[in-house]
């Protein structure tokens, strides 16, 4: 039994969303889908299904990975009613080491569209839970998924891969958090109709702010948005008196000249007694004069400033991703070592060898009195001992193989057999195999 991991899937890099969405599974269908997969694919021994907006993947265990991958592709085609040649080119498949590496990279968010995004780990955990519910998780998949979780945890702890803001609006929200201790007592004013500005206002609003004022050249639009977001619409020709109570001002008014200059703003700043003010300029051309940034406790960021921060975070994440890859490689080795420990072939060899040696030793010791026997009798003693050892070996090995099929105690049984027979340990680190066989994977992360 040298079962191995395999993965068949498509992701955001290999296929466009138009194809991905046709292969995607509904969340509440996954348990049933796993049942259908196992039914139609005899080569697949264990399986889990990951279906997110960026990927559809089957992670499985099989003795013949190539056949299992083929069956899985067929299953996807029939189950999703998509002709196989429509998506075959867009799929990738991995086996063994590569499959394990891919799974770990996915969990560590190294394969994500935005590297380091945190949702994927939760999605992976969900996939595992669904597979467990579908009873399609065995020893190897259990171990592989938990290893993937602990790799992800190590990567999060050991690198800065999840740090920094990777979109304009989240960068703006993060900045607000660096200026203000809390947003609960803050007033946000949204000026204009830009999508990005609206998104930023929405995100701030969702964090819980004191009040949201909305002004726009088209008053109806301001009223509609105010109703949607639970804010207050302010007429555009009369927004200035409100500035002194505004802590975060988001501008995206279309105007060829800045709508707010330093001179009139200086009095606003004084009137609000220099309480800090965050100006987010999302207008192009820009809404706020750049000199506003020089005013006491006023922080002005335009779209390029925010974009530069996003670029920097992305760059930082790339650098951190390299560290993460190293962690993945390290963990990959330990997983593969464990997997190799499950393989019974070396154990069987060891046991056979030690039993044979036992027989040789005994025959050697009997050489003295056997010399008195005739050749025919010697032959019969030989045959007798060989028969005895073969019977014994057969019992042990078939017992081992039976347990091996049940997988759970395979490594344990193998080690017991070896120890009882005094078989030599080879290079494999079997302790690893059973100390960890039943753990939940989290220990790995906590231990370091």
């Amino acid at each position: 039994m040298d079962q191995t991991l395999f993965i068949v899937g498509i992701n955001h890099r290999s296929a466009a969303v138009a194809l991905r969405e046709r292969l995607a599974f509904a969340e509440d269908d996954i348990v049933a889908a796993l049942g259908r997969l196992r039914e139609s694919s005899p080569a697949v021994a264990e399986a889990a299904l990951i279906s997110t907006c960026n990927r559809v993947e089957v992670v499985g265990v099989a003795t013949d990975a190539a056949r299992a991958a083929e069956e899985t592709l067929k299953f996807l085609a029939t189950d999703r009613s998509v002709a196989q040649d429509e998506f075959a080119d867009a799929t990738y498949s991995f086996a063994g080491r590569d499959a394990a590496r891919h799974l770990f990279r996915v969990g560590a968010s190294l394969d994500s569209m935005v590297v380091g995004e945190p949702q994927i780990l939760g999605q992976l955990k969900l996939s595992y839970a669904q597979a467990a519910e579908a009873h399609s998780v065995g020893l190897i998949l259990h171990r592989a998924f938990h290893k993937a979780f602990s790799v992800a945890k190590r990567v999060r702890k050991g690198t800065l891969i999840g740090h920094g803001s990777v979109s304009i609006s989240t960068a703006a929200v993060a900045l607000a958090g660096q200026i203000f201790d809390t947003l609960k007592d803050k007033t946000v004013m949204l000026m204009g109709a830009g999508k990005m500005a609206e998104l930023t206002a929405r995100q701030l609003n969702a964090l819980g702010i004191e009040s949201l004022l909305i002004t726009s050249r088209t008053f109806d639009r301001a009223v509609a948005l105010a109703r949607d977001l639970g804010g207050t619409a302010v007429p555009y020709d009369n927004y200035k008196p409100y500035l002194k109570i505004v802590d975060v001002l988001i501008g995206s008014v279309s105007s060829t000249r800045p709508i707010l200059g330093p001179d009139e703003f200086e009095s606003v700043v004084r009137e609000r007694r220099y309480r800090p003010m965050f100006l987010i300029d999302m207008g192009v051309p820009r809404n706020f004069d750049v000199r506003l940034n020089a005013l006491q406790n006023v922080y002005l960021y335009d779209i390029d400033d925010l974009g530069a921060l996003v670029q920097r975070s992305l760059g930082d994440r790339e650098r951190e991703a390299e560290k993460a890859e190293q962690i993945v490689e390290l963990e990959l080795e330990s997983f593969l070592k464990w997997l190799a420990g499950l393989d019974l072939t070396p154990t069987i060899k060891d046991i056979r060898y030690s039993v044979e040696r036992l027989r040789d030793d005994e025959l050697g010791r009997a050489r003295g009195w056997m010399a008195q026997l005739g050749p025919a009798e010697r032959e019969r003693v030989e045959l007798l001992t060989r028969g005895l050892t073969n019977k014994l070996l057969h019992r042990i090995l078939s017992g081992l193989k039976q347990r091996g099929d049940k997988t759970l105690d395979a490594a344990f049984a193998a080690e017991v057999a070896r120890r009882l027979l005094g078989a030599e340990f080879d290079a494999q680190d079997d302790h690893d195999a059973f100390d960890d066989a039943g753990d939940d994977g989290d220990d790995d992360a906590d231990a370091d």
Partner: protein
Amino acid sequence: MPALACYALSAALFMFDRSSGRTRATGYAVAILGAGAIFHALDLTARGLQAGNIPVANFPQALSFLAWLTALAGLLLIVRLRLAVIGAFVAPAVTLALGAASLTTSSGHLVLPETLRSVWLPIHVTLAILGYSMFVLAASVSIVYLAFESRLKSKRAIGPVNEGAPSLEKLDRINYHLLGWGFAMLSLAIVSGAIWADATWGHFWSWDPKESWSLVIWILYAGLLESRLTVGWRGRRAAALTIVLLGVLVGSFVGVNLIFPGKHGGSFG
């Protein structure tokens, strides 16, 4: 002495984290700062028992006492307000103060003059030094404020270092509270000193250099608080002034005690 070693080690760890932009050593730095404060407390207790009063018989002892109170209050801020960023300024300040105190301290038996043995001694001195420690901490918070502020103004804001760091608003508020507490302590110290002086010498105020300077400093801090309450000077301006005022305070603390030993300076801090 173990206290000084702990402070120095803690300062090194805080500064290492600050320069590397990580928070890996911060936990240890806080713990070691705490250990230093405990050793320091034992040392102060021993000296206090020897003196029969709080150990402030001379300038080095007063400095040591100030270092201890600053470490203690700093730890409180770091732990309760999750303000580990000030550690890189508080721990070195404490190390410097105690280091200077240890260098200049005389090992001889120090006896308080008869006239100063009074219940007013611990009250007056503790209030004054507690007030000073608040001002030291306020300045530490202000340095952090200015550093963060300049990052935000120059748009180098979001980086791994700043994530989880206190916001400008929080630092400004803490600065204000520390100044308020420090000012209250200083006021009470001056009042208690006056009452004590009246009881001992028969007059409240005698314009000795320490008294004059305390008054100057009291007025300066009053002005700083006043400007926030009336004009709304906060943020960068307040932080910069807090640091400048600490400079004046340190100058007078050292200068008055060493250069103009009036009835305060020669005998105690």
